[in-house]
Every structure is written in C-alpha cells, then in structure tokens.
C-alpha cells in the first residue's frame, strides 16, 4: 500500500467524519441559543481529530520504518552472504529497495538482486503495519471527538485555536529558513576553515581548487578568493552599474517628468518585461550574440587570442537586466519629493532640466543611492549570466576584455563536479556562499535604512 494512498484514506475518513458530525450536531439543535457552536464547527472538530493523529503517526512511521525494514531484511537467510556492516552493505540494501519498487531499475551490485524478495517482503509487511496504525489512530481520534458532539461543546473555540496554531507555525517558516541558511552556511564554512585558514581564503590571490586532489597541509595556497571577489565587483558593481545607472536613471527621469501618459503606459510594461525575463535567457543571449561581438572588438583593438568569455559581455548584459530595478527605485524616490519643491524651482524661472538636476535629484539622492545598492546586491548575486558568459579563469585583471570569474560562478562550478561532500573544494562553495550572503544582507539592510529615513524626512 503506497504511503500517499494512506494519507488519502485519512483525508477521506476526515471528510466522512465532517459530514456525520455535522449531521449529528444538527439533530441537537433545539432553538436559538441552544448550541455553543454551529454544526459545521463540530464537523471541523471531528475532521481535525481524525486527520491530525493520522498525520502524526504516519510521519513518525516514515522515520522509524526504514530501520525496521533493514533489520528485517538483514535477518532473512538471503542476507547471510552480505558483507559486514558498512558502505557496501547499505549500498546493496538501497539498490535492493530500488529494485523492489521498480523491477526495471538499473543496479550495479548483483547481490542486490538476491535481496529483493526479502526486502520487498519486509517493505510490504511494515507498510501494512504503518497503514494499520495510521488508520487505527484516525478511528480512535474520530470516535473520541464524535462522542463529544454535544450542544454545549465549544467546538468553535477548539477549531479556532487549531487554526491560530497553524497560522503561527506558518509564519515561523520564514524565520526557520533564515536560520537554516545561516546555520548550514556557517557549519560547512567552519569545516572548510579547518582545512584552509580564513586568512588564506580571504586574502590569497591564487584560486585553483581541485575537487579530486588529495587533501594536503598546504592546500590553502589554492583557495585564495581575492580574484573571485575582484571579478564579482568588477562585473556586478562596476561594468553593470556603468550601464544600468545612466540608463535606469535617465529612463526614470524621462518617464516621470517628460513622457506623455500614453508613452508611460507603453514603456513601463516594457521595462517590467526586461525585469521578468529569466536570467538563463540573458545568459544565453550574452553567450550567443554579445560575447562574439566583444571578442571581435578585442581582436580589433589588438588583443591577441582573446577569449570568447569576457567580463565585458557578462557585465553589459547584466547591466541591461538591472535597468528596471534602478529605474523603478529612482521613479519612487523622485515621486516622493514634495511637489512644492519642484513648483518653487520652476516658478523661479528654472527650466525643467535645471529643476531636475539641481532640485529633484539632490532631494531624491538618498533614495536613488539605496536603489543602486539594492541593484548592486542583485547583480553580485546573479549566477546564470556570469556562468554562461564570464568564464572560469580566476584572473586578477582590470581589463574588461579578459575572462573573469565570480563568486556565484565558482559556487555553481564547485558543486557541479560531484566531488566528495567533505572535500575542501565542495566546502569552499559554502564559504563563498556565506561571504555572498553577508555582503548582500549588509547592502540590503543599509539600503532599507536609508529608504526609511528618507521617507521620514519628507512626511
């Protein structure tokens, strides 16, 4: 019996419980004020008493049954030929389980085939026991609640308390996610720093991790992340911003100050579409059309043998991607400047552009600066464009036509290569992730602070 089927059974029972309890509660109704709760609340109460115990028992069973199945399979005569406890035995057992699920599955260990009958017998036995226990608890819970369906029974308060608990638990997920991110990054980074000292990592200039190299004492020489930090800043915070800031700011100014209502109505969605295009599409576009043109340009200016992957191609396309962020933040902060300031300037005889340059932009500057910080944090966390267009070579160079690599590129690259999880090369990805997380977090917190203070200033 498939585990999902049991859950469906429990839900079906809950539905039956809902209808019967509501029907019973309806018979108790003797007139206005004769009951504490509406009949449907009695229905909900019984349904919850059926479904919640079943779910709890079912999840507990999912945790303990693999151990029981393994013990049962090992006790069978077929298991006598298996090697002693260890990696190989657990690999054989898991392959046998795969075969038991799906007879066509591909397995590498011939011993697994021998184990299939024993394993599938154990699996079906414990699945039946689990199903029985789950449904038993559903029945017991339902029967208990059903016996409590009385006129004075406060079904509504109980149901509402459960609802409130569910709401509270749902709101904890966000904080759990944050905690999970921080905990897993810090934990793996700690393990990484037991191989490579933080000083070597943060200030070293040579980056050449090899996930299959043996771990030696001087491994720290190969984990100097400065070239990655430089590549990230050069692509995300310099080249991309040189493109995005003028274009984003000027389009925001034009749309808010000059454009007719019709043009605004057309152009704002166009900018929003730019923000909604998946980054993998930008990355492909950068690799397909922009990078070859940048390469031709590099040949033209006399570089010999330029790479098809360059910081410039990735940065240019990333800049275009960032335009909508800069422009919408600039739009918000320019609109937040009180119109009295603008009207005052115009009334003194300043032209529109003078008003914008001398009054609106200085007044909106904190908001614009915050928008740029958010855009930078977005750009340095962007993966696909640099992954497809910037390259893997960790060059410490100021030439935008060189191939360069970034923090996000290296995270993806190190984890893609199927190395052992406890190798420093894999763990380095988590250390890079921690650096990236801290930097983007700081940028965001500072930007939000600025925005809030700026908003207060004009209210």
């Amino acid at each position, binding site marked *: 019996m498939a585990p999902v089927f049991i859950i469906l059974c429990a839900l079906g029972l809950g539905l039956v419980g809902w209808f019967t309890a509501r029907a019973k509660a309806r018979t108790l109704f003797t007139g206005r004020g004769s009951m504490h709760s509406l009949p449907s609340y009695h229905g909900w109460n019984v349904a919850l008493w059926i479904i919640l115990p079943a779910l709890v028992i079912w999840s507990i069973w999912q945790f303990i049954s693999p151990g029981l199945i393994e013990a049962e399979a090992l006790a069978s005569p077929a298991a006598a030929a298996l090697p002693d406890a260890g990696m190989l035995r657990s690999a054989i057992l898991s392959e046998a389980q795969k075969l038991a699920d799906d007879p066509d599955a591909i397995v590498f260990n011939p011993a697994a085939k021998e184990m299939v009958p024993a394993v599938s017998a154990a699996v079906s036995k414990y699945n039946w026991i689990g199903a029985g226990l789950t449904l038993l608890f559903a029945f017991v819970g339902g029967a208990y609640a059903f016996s409590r369906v009385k006129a004075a029974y406060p079904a*509504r308060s109980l149901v509402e308390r459960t*609802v*409130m608990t569910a*709401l509270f638990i*749902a*709101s904890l*997920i*966000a*904080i759990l*996610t*944050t905690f*999970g*991110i921080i905990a*897993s*990054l810090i934990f*793996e980074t700690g393990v990484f720093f037991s191989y490579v000292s933080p000083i070597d990592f943060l200030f070293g200039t040579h980056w050449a991790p090899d996930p299959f190299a043996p771990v030696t004492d001087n491994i720290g020489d190969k984990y100097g992340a400065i070239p990655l930090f430089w590549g990230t800043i050069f692509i995300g915070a310099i080249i991309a911003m040189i493109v995005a800031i003028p274009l984003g*700011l*000027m*389009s925001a*100014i*034009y*749309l808010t100050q000059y454009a007719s209502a019709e043009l605004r109505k057309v*152009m704002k969605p166009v900018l929003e*579409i*730019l923000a*909604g295009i*998946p*980054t*993998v*599409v*930008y*990355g*492909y*576009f950068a*690799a*397909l059309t922009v990078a070859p043109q940048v390469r031709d340009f590099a040949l033209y200016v006399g570089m010999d043998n330029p790479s098809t992957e360059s910081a410039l191609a990735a940065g240019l396309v990333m800049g*275009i991607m960032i*335009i909508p962020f800069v422009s919408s933040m600039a739009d918000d902060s320019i609109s937040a400047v009180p119109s009295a300031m603008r009207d005052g300037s115009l009334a003194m005889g300043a*032209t529109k*552009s003078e008003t914008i*340059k001398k009054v609106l932009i200085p007044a909106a500057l904190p908001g614009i600066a915050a928008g740029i910080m*958010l855009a930078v*944090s*977005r750009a340095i*966390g*962007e*993966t*696909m464009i640099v*992954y*497809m267009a910037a390259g893997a070579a960790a060059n410490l160079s100021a030439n935008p036509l060189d191939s360069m690599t970034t923090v*996000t590129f290296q*995270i*993806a690259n190190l*984890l*893609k290569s199927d190395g052992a999880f406890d190798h420093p090369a894999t763990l380095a990805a988590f250390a890079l*992730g921690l650096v*990236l*997380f801290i930097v983007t*977090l700081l940028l*965001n917190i500072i930007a939000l602070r600025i925005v809030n203070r700026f908003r207060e200033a004009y209210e």
Partner: protein
Amino acid sequence: MSNSVSIWQTEAMTGRVKKRYNAERRFKALGMAAIIISALFLVYLLGTMLAEGLGGLDWSFIVNSDATTPDDAGIWGALKGSFFTMIVTLSLAFPLGVLAAIYLEEFAARNRWIGWIEVSINNLAAVPSIIFGLLGLAVFIQTMHLPRSSALVAGMTLALMTLPVIVIAGRNAIAAVPPSIRDAALAVGASKVQTVFHHVLPLALPGILTGTIIGMSRALGETAPLLLIGMQAFVATPPDGIRDSATVLPMQVFLWSDEIDKGFVQTTSAAILVLLVFLVTMNGLAIYLRNRFETRW
C-alpha cells in the same frame, strides 16, 4: 523710456536663454535615448530568439524529450519536470504564504519576535537565489536524503524562495481591505477567525493571487539554485513522479546552450520561446486578475 532696451533683449541675455533651452533639449533627448536603448535591447533579444528558434518549433519538438542530437531533442521531459516542480512549489508556498500573511497582518502582537519574523521575510526576498540552492543541497539532500535532481527537492527549494514573495504580496492585499469590513463583521457577532476567513480573505484573494502568480513565474524561470541540487543531469526519459530524476525548462535551455553542435542553437532558442510564452501568459493572467477583481476602496 521707449528707446531704452529691456535687459531681456540684450545679446548676452538672448544668448544665455538660448543656451539654457539647448541644454534642456539635450537633456530631454538623453532621456529619450535611454528609453529607446532599453526598448531596442528587448526587441533585439526577442528578435534574435525568434529568428533562431521559430524554425525549431514543431510538434515533434514538443513531444520529444532530451536527446544527444538536436533533431531528436524536444522539451516534453522538461515541461513535465517544470510542471511537477511547480505543483510542489505551489502546494507548499501558497498555503504557508497565505497563512503566514494572515497571521502577521491580522493576529500578531507587535513584539520583538514578530519583528524578527518580518525582518527575516524581507531579507529572504532579497537573498540571491543561489544561496537557496546551497540551503537545498545542505538540508534536503545531505541531511534529509531526498532524491537528488528530483522535482520534489527542486520544488521545495523554490518554495522557500517564493514564500517571501507571497507573504509580502498577501500582507499588502490584506492590509488594503478597509477596517470597516472587519468592524461590520465583528459587530454582528462573528469571531475574529470568522471575520478574517469569511470576509477579509475573500476580498484580499485577487491581490494574493496576483502576487502568487508573479512569484510562481519567477520560480518557473529560475535556474541557479537548481544547478546545485543536481538538476543539470541529462534526463532522456520524462519523469513520472516528483521523486524521479527530472529537469526543468530553464535548465534544459542551459544544458542545450552548452552543446557544441551548432544545431542546438535552434533547439535552445525554441525552448526559450516556449519558456517566454509561459511567462508572458502567467504575467498576463496576473495583470488581468489585478484589473478585473481589484477593488479600489
């Protein structure tokens, strides 16, 4: 009096005014140019994809799965993978997001704990997506031993990423429902929970749905976190369930873009067109919902 020339007519002054008007025109032209450059880039991008990919869009491209030759390659497997992933994401992120939004907006006391929850939701919305991939790898695969490169893990990872978007949209939609609605329900004897679920939530639902669709369309186009949970594997058989090895549409684009065979340029561009059609449809639906059902109080 009549022969004295006004200061505005002096040559120096007309020159100055002319200069200022020229500066004004230049500035306006710069703004126009910025808009045109952005729009041209979009046209260039879409035009390139259409020119490269339109020829590859036929029936066999839709019903085939990944293959080693561009002529046999299709997107059915990736479409199915994306579908399963989105189902997992939606069924986790939507209920949790709506419930969390209700709690934070309607019931939560203003204390330090709730402050922490709010801060972490706002920060999660700005965390780079690849960090969620690291979380998925460390928690779902290394700790919970869920199947690598499955739609289940991908959906759970993307759900964590989409959750803050839905919570923020949900809170805005709930806050936009005027207090008079709540007061009216409470005044005729509804409990607080009844007020929220029978009156506030239905009125806020269009706004919540709009936010959900926008969050889902972002999740549909996401690639980076899925790279880390093993979805870059070559999957030639379409997945039959959420635990099977799968790939998703943007990941298929990425995999094909890496192929050396020139023929894959067409398949990649065609897959991008399909992806863009889905995204445009979803965003169009969101805009329609917003215009059709949004009430201005």
